[in-house]
């Protein structure tokens, strides 16, 4: 009952994303552009850039993943699919988890893959690419999962995008601190294990509890 539903929804959402490729590309380009703006703004001093690289990449990832949250439920809400999902036999929490997973595959995973390239631009040591990618791999799903709550709450509201950032960004702060912190620890020659384990723990806790809240929010928003 549950796994076929997950499979169907993930496949459907990925297919829809594939049909509207420009949406996916826009969020990714946004990530690249934001990360490229910082050297222009703060100056081209290599040591400074090397020092701020983890933070810049993480902030850019955070903003990019937040911008793409609007797409998570909006299209389904607009054409009535969401109502069918609310009425359907599959538990809403499962539906939400599957949609979030598909959303992360489209908007989070590309960031993980392209981040080392940005790190290269910032002249980050090659040894840190692994930690950076791993921290993003653990952290960006948390962003999608927590962000889904905000996306569900602001569904169909005027000016929902700005409101969404106000709701979601404070909740993103711990992920940002741990994610950027892990790379900085590794850069300082210390073990990033602690931060990465905490990120993993956050991922597990968020994946277990947040879909409930998202499901409740969807029910509130589509009453």
């Amino acid at each position, binding site marked *: 009952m549950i796994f076929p539903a997950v499979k169907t929804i993930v496949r459907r959402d990925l297919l829809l994303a594939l049909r509207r490729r420009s949406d996916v590309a826009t969020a990714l380009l946004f990530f690249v552009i934001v990360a490229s703006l910082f050297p222009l703004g703060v100056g081209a001093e290599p040591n400074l850039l090397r020092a701020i690289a983890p933070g810049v990449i993480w902030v850019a990832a955070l903003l990019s993943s937040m911008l793409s949250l609007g797409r998570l439920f909006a299209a389904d809400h607009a054409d009535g699919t969401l109502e069918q999902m609310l009425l359907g036999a599959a538990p809403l929490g499962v539906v939400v988890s599957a949609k979030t997973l598909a959303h992360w595959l489209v908007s989070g995973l590309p960031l993980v893959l392209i981040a080392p390239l940005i790190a290269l631009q910032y002249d980050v040591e090659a040894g840190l690419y692994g930690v950076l990618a791993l921290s993003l791999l653990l952290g960006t799903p948390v962003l999608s999962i927590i962000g889904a*709550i905000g996306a569900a709450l602001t569904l169909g509201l005027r000016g929902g995008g700005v409101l969404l950032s106000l709701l979601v960004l*404070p909740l993103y*702060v711990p992920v940002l601190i741990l994610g950027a912190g892990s790379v900085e620890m590794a850069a300082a020659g210390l073990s990033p294990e602690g931060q990465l384990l905490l990120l993993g723990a956050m991922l597990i806790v968020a994946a277990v509890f947040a879909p409930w809240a998202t499901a409740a929010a969807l029910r509130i928003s589509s009453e």
Partner: protein
Amino acid sequence: MTTQGIRWFWYASPQTFFPLAGKIARVCAVLAVIFALAGLYVGFLVAPTDAQQGEAYRIIYIHVPAAWMSMFIYVVMAVWAAAGLALNTRLSFMMVRALAPTGALFTFIALWTGAFWGRPTWGTYWVWGDTRLMTELILLFLYFGVMALQAAIDERRRADRAGALLAIVGVVNIPLIYYSVKWWNTLHQGASVSFTKAPSMAATMFTGMILMALAFWTYSIAVAMVRLRCEIVETQ
């Protein structure tokens, strides 16, 4: 069902609670003034000067009670939010609306006074690396988020329920604030007062702080009740 039980549900209706809220507001407002005067008197005139921090420490009579209230009001707000979602009572959601601005105010006061205390003692207004400061700032944003979400939704029922859900989600931040000085040894000092051991400060200082906390507490109740009455008048 006992008479006690019936009275609870009797007062769960906005109309019947309206006069009681007025009485509570008046009593608490008077108490708040008395406690505040007593607290300020003890804090500024009776309590001794701190050996290490000098006179600057006296800001704790505002700072610590405000910080307590900022967390406490959030928890109370979340409890009302949960009660509203579970029991579907209008008054609970009105309590959420009535408490949020006061909570945000105390969070802001805690941050502001903390900055002014930090300047002479730490040598800086703000430290980005400190977890207590960060989590308290997040608390302020959470209050703003709840209020903004409620304000952004025109349909009242959805606004109340969405705000309530966000308030409940934000509760994860409260233990982080409370334990931040224990789990991370950053700049902010540990708690001077706890439930399990005697306070690590002079008795008069402690009395002044408790009096101020009582003043803030009764003030919060009074203001929340006044705001609740406005909410009732607005909606009924």
